[in-house]
């Protein structure tokens, strides 16, 4: 869910359209990973692109508009970070292509802002030299000067500018007014960006081979002249790492963090969920009382209020999940977790590199699949993409929560764990284990014993700023609400229509829905799904779930609201299904959503990222087969255990 439909943007729209480059000159932000390019982009353009403390957050180019103080319109391009002009993975390739003017559907930038992390000039300045040689007008934005100052690194901007031969300005991308000096430069004509070549100590050779070593020597010389040639490692980060990377303590910490996250999703959300439920019931009662019995009241109460309310109630849980993910992303812990898990992932033929894409898939498989661009090995990248949907995305949370709430008793286990939280954790684990199984199978089939590259940066730790976390949560909430408001509502209305028409023939005895289109469709589908314990109501609800998984819940809400003959108001779904389903059916449905093969936007993303229909078809096929098989086993075991 969440970022799902957000990350699929114009960048990858078919580039067959004629490109008229509107909106003025193009300014590209280029720099090492994690130096603050996206933060700067957000400050300049007012966008809200994702910023986080690890290398490889941005994996595609994003465009924004910037109006200079003098009123000039510029197009600003945020690019994936890169260590050099030798791309090793598809995300770095994007940046190099843009700089070389090879990017599809985009011209070569007119100017380049080289973003540089002031706490790590040694590595960052080398890229500036390489970019400068490309002959594009450029300036240097010396970012993170706040952190540098705190660590006693004071850079003489004028001197650095003289040494590099291009203008240099200080920025603090996480402050609203942190880009003032850069704004002034953006108003200056492009000629001013070239600097004074005569003063430039860097020879502007046309020789194609200037080695990294030569650039390194130049940087070293510049740093000596600035009095900055000593190393200034972040000692606090080192001390934290002694704990976090400790073989025993660190591993235990990782387990505790992950487990806490899922316990909290259940424990903390209870109260706000109660409020939302109460509010939904209040609205439904009000509408029921205000309108006379008829199709409009049925649409409003049974369709819209039952459907949307049924999904809205999960907002607190989703926000709690994202709260944890945001804190982990901002702190710099994620690459450490990837490091700790590298060996484990190696046993199934993957590397720690796959960890962050897979973790992102817990929010939504789509950004996770995109993040696989940071993986250098094409084979690992493909396997990561193929198993990403097995990570339980947040859209499945409503389904899990509904079923767990209805069928799993609320009680404490071993005096400290909540059984419901434990089951939820178990479902997440089931997804992870099956993903590992698939990866292992892929390893057996595609034998390749060579070590796969890791080379992963471990950034210094940052305190997550409350403001960033708040903005992140607000974004999640608004995306979720838009989805409830848009897709889910529309599908719910369609569902209500299908479930209400055609009207039952005169003298019919059962509820109207059994004679409707949905009823017919459901009975048809039930032939496939009966062996795994799904009744026709469930089978119908799975269909709109293909567009958005949460809809399965709202669709169930609608189907049951209409099936309940006699009862007028929209009842809470939970007691209703607890009543009418067996435990075996519930377990089977939970299992179904561990694999949940039906998400059209995920399949579309896989097609785009792998460049063809083959992989999305393979994915849909194997997920469906796996889901059906697992449900079959679970259902029949449960029936045998007497839970039928």
């Amino acid at each position, binding site marked *: 869910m969440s970022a799902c439909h957000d990350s699929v943007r114009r960048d990858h729209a078919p580039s067959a359209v004629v490109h008229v480059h509107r909106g003025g000159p193009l300014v590209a932000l280029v720099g090492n990973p994690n130096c603050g390019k996206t933060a700067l982009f957000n400050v300049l353009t007012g966008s809200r692109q994702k910023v986080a403390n690890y290398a490889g957050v941005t994996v595609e180019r994003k465009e924004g508009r910037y109006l200079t103080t003098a009123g000039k319109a510029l197009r600003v391009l945020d690019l994936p970070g890169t260590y050099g002009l030798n791309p090793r993975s598809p995300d770095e390739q994007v940046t190099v292509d843009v700089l070389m003017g090879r990017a599809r559907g985009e011209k070569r930038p007119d100017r380049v802002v080289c973003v540089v992390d002031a706490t790590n000039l040694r590595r960052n300045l080398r890229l500036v030299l390489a970019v400068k040689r490309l002959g594009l007008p450029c300036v240097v934005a010396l970012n993170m000067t706040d952190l540098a100052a705190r660590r006693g690194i004071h850079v003489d901007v004028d001197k650095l500018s003289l040494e590099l031969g291009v203008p240099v300005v200080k920025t603090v991308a996480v402050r609203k007014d942190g880009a003032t000096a850069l704004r002034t430069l953006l108003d200056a004509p492009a000629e001013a960006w070239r600097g004074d070549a005569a003063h430039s100590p860097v020879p502007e050779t046309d020789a194609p081979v200037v080695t990294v070593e030569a650039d*390194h020597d130049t940087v070293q010389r510049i740093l000596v002249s600035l009095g900055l040639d000593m190393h200034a490692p972040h000692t606090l980060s080192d001390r934290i790492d002694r704990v976090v*990377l400790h073989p025993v303590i660190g591993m235990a910490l990782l387990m505790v963090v992950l487990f806490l996250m899922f316990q909290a999703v259940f424990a903390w959300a209870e109260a706000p969920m109660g409020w939302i439920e109460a509010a939904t019931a209040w609205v439904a009662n009000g509408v029921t009382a205000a309108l006379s019995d008829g199709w409009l009241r049925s649409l409003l109460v049974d369709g819209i209020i039952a459907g949307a309310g049924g999904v809205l109630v999960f907002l607190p849980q989703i926000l709690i999940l994202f709260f944890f993910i945001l804190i982990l992303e901002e702190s710099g812990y994620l690459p450490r977790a990837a490091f700790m898990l590298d*060996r484990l992932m190696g046993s199934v033929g993957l590397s720690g590199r796959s960890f962050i894409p897979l973790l992102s898939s817990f929010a939504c498989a789509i950004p996770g699949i995109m993040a696989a661009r940071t993986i250098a090995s094409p084979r690992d990248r493909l396997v990561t993409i193929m198993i990403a949907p097995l990570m339980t995305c947040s859209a499945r949370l409503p389904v899990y929560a509904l079923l767990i709430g209805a069928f799993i008793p609320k009680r404490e286990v071993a005096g400290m764990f909540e059984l419901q939280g434990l089951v939820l954790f178990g479902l997440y684990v089931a997804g992870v284990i099956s993903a590992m199984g698939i990866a292992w199978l892929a390893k057996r089939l595609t034998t390749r014993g060579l*070590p796969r*590259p890791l*080379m992963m940066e471990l950034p210094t730790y940052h305190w997550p700023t409350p403001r960033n976390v708040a903005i992140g949560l607000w974004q999640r909430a608004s995306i979720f609400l838009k989805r409830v408001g848009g897709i889910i509502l529309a599908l719910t209305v369609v569902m209500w229509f299908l479930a209400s028409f055609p009207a039952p023939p005169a003298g019919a005895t059962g509820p109207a829905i059994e004679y409707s289109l949905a009823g017919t469709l459901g009975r048809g589908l039930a032939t496939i799904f009966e062996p795994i314990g799904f009744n026709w109501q469930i089978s119908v609800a799975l269909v709109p779930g293909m567009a958005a998984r949460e809809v399965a819940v709202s669709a169930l809400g609608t189907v049951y609201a209409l099936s309940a003959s006699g009862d007028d108001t929209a009842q809470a779904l939970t007691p209703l299904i607890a009543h009418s389903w067996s435990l075996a059916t519930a377990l089977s449905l939970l299992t179904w959503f561990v694999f949940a093969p039906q998400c059209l936007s995920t399949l579309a993303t896989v097609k785009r990222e792998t460049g063809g229909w083959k992989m999305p078809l393979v994915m849909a096929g194997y997920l469906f087969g796996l889901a059906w098989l697992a449900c079959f086993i679970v259902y029949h075991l449960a029936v045998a255990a007497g839970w039928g």
Partner: protein
Amino acid sequence: MFTLDRSDDFQLCRIERIHTPEHAPEWHDWLQELGFIPGEKVMLMARAQPGGDPLVVRVGSSTFALRCAEAACIEVTLLDNATGAA
């Protein structure tokens, strides 16, 4: 001279040479772009356990996780931890 994967933890070393492994010739350039360049000081900060692979390596003021096979491409000599001299 020895390769970085054989270094002791928290031992300051200087990079002498980057090998080009036969199975992955691109690693040479990749490692250099990260900052593993002859003359730079490096230090092993941690090893994942069990197995001792991958490693955490400090180079300049950056920290990277490297696989042993990657660290084995980096040839180093010992430096004195206190003085930084050879």
